[in-house]
């Protein structure tokens, strides 16, 4: 289990993480959601010990970054997604995968499996200087998979990927989760995150403002785009209006009579609506919408 204990970190006056306490279990995908510059990458860097918090500590399997020796031990269990701009231009993709597999004591045979799984065979033996952004991004992800650590920190892995590749990587993420890995991901692709994340943390002002377990997120909401007609229909019903013009009405909070009346009104006025659990995009709008 990975524990973030009372972690506070500030850059000058700017408090990025404020007394954060979190616990993450193996076999889960954790999403970190927040607008840019609100602490997602900072939290990942604190977990890696690239940034040392002014207060608090990170603990994994009862180990903390209390010594250089422990740091090496922890880095044997924790691997982070590298930046595609940092790839060695004169080395092939296969060299990169072998490098990470070897550095983390994994067999080179796993490299071939990863290449096949991520459909990289056509370019893996070319130098990375010739790769497109999407190819580099896929390689960086493959490197983390090759390291095969029990904790994987993935900061914006879907950036620059086409839908096909997003889907491909999503499948691998689910497979990794099934194998018991703990994956912590910072992502802006909320729809995609919703597909496989078990738990999503919304960060703001150094705090986790919402920690949602998507497995338990079954409560249904009626979702309506804002208009004059909609406004008049729902004016007497408790609802939440988002900055993007979406209105959310919790069905659990309506009695049957009100529900029937509301449906009738919407049908009569030909107003489209959706009934589904609250999405990460909705929550993003709630927390960060202007």
């Amino acid at each position: 289990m990975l524990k973030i204990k009372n972690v506070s970190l500030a850059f000058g006056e700017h408090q990025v993480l404020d007394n954060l306490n979190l616990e993450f279990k193996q076999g889960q995908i954790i999403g970190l959601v927040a607008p840019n510059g609100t602490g997602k990458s900072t939290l990942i860097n604190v977990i890696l010990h690239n940034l040392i918090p002014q207060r608090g500590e990170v603990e994994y399997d009862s180990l903390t970054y209390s010594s250089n020796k422990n740091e090496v031990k922890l880095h044997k269990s924790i691997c982070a997604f590298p930046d595609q701009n940092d790839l060695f231009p004169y080395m092939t993709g296969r060299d990169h995968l072998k490098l990470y597999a070897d550095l983390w004591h994994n067999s080179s045979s796993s490299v071939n499996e990863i290449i096949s799984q991520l459909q990289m065979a056509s370019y893996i033996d070319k130098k990375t200087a010739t790769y497109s952004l999407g190819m580099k991004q896929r390689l960086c992800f493959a490197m983390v998979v090759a390291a095969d650590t029990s904790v994987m920190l993935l900061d914006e892995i879907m950036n620059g990927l086409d839908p096909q590749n997003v889907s491909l990587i999503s499948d691998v993420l689910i497979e990794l989760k099934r194998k018991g890995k703990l994956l912590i991901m910072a992502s802006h692709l909320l729809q995609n995150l919703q597909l496989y994340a078990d738990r999503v943390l919304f960060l703001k002002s150094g705090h986790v403002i919402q920690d949602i377990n998507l497995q338990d997120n079954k409560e249904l909401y009626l979702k309506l785009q804002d208009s004059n007609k909609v406004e008049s229909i729902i004016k007497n019903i408790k609802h939440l209006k988002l900055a993007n013009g979406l209105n959310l009405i919790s069905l659990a909070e309506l009695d049957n009579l009100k529900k029937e009346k509301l449906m009738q009104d919407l049908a009569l006025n030909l107003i489209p609506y959706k009934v589904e659990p609250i999405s990460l995009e909705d929550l993003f709008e709630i927390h960060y919408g202007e």
Partner: protein
Amino acid sequence: MKRTYFLLQLKLFFNNPKNIGLFIISAIVALYFGLVSAPNHHIIEKIDQPAIQAELDDHQAFIKIADKEFQRSANNPNAMPPSKGAKEAKRTYPTIIKLDKLRLQALNNNNYRAYASFSWQWYHYLDSLLFQKAIQNYTYPSEYYSQTNYPGYDGHYGYSRITALYKGLSQGKTSVNKDILEERTSLQILQKSLSGWSVILLIIFVCLFTCDLLTYDQKFRTILKNIPLTKTFQLGTKLVVAFIGIIFNFLISFLIIILCTAPRYGLGSLSLAVPIYRGRPYYEFSFKTISLGRYFVYFSMMALLVILIFISLSILISLLIKNSYITAILTIIVAVIAKVSYFSLGMGYVYPWLRYLPTTYFTIGDSLSGYLSYLMGTPGWGFQWGLMPLLVLLIGLNLLLLIFSNSRRFSII
């Protein structure tokens, strides 16, 4: 895992554009040295048969005049007594004329071993007349007067050196030819040139190779930052990799010099004699000789220490100040500080404790050949003396590296 990191660092070193530039510059410098500089190097004590013949003719002519002076004086008691020059000529010229004749005969027979044997006696005899007896009839070659501030001593140093060289070569087992006697063979060129500013230039290359050993990793920060290896191991690997890269560069440069010079002058032999100054000008023989092979073993030992010192120093500075330019400037200052400060002022005579400073021995060749002893005016600046300060500095630097690499305040990337 450790092998993988080592191979990665090796790849990074050899693919670093700055290092590739340094490899190319080294090769160009080596080519220039081998093709232009070494062949045009002026040799003071070169084998010049016409010059020996001319000198012999002069001496024979002068001794005839001296004979006449003595005859005139003997025949007429009222005549002027023989001049001091004539007296000295009568006393000294016969030996010189005899040796000159033998030298010429040896050259006519292409017997360079015999030439070396008669020549060392010639130089030794002439030097004793010049340096110890200060006879005015003779002078050292003009180059000793035009190039240095201490012509008497420099001439004595030069003649004593050539005496030891020729004696060693004439008594050695290796066959001797003109190029060997003039120290033009590849191995002899390397031995002679690896001293003074040449070695400082090589150390500057070491500084430039190593100044970005740590900062270059910044380009690949997120890949290398969190790998599960201790900082001490990573720094140690970088040290070894830089050492291999630098040795490789120097060996290639030396090979280029050998390929440029060997076809023309021959490779030479490791059993050839190398003169080493013993530290006192008034010994009968101020130089002893060791074999070229032994000289290169000593040189290699000191060079390895000096290279490791500068790699360690670069890594240490880079660990504290993550700026390759500052690292390069500071290490180059350390490399040249002795040469531009106390060496140039001749302070060794005044401050003998300078022999305990490692900086004194960075020029290596000067120390091994005894030229440093000559400059400092005392024995004891050679291999045995240089080894300890260099070793102590290297150990000290690596202890500091160990301490700082275990400090959590200093990261590699």
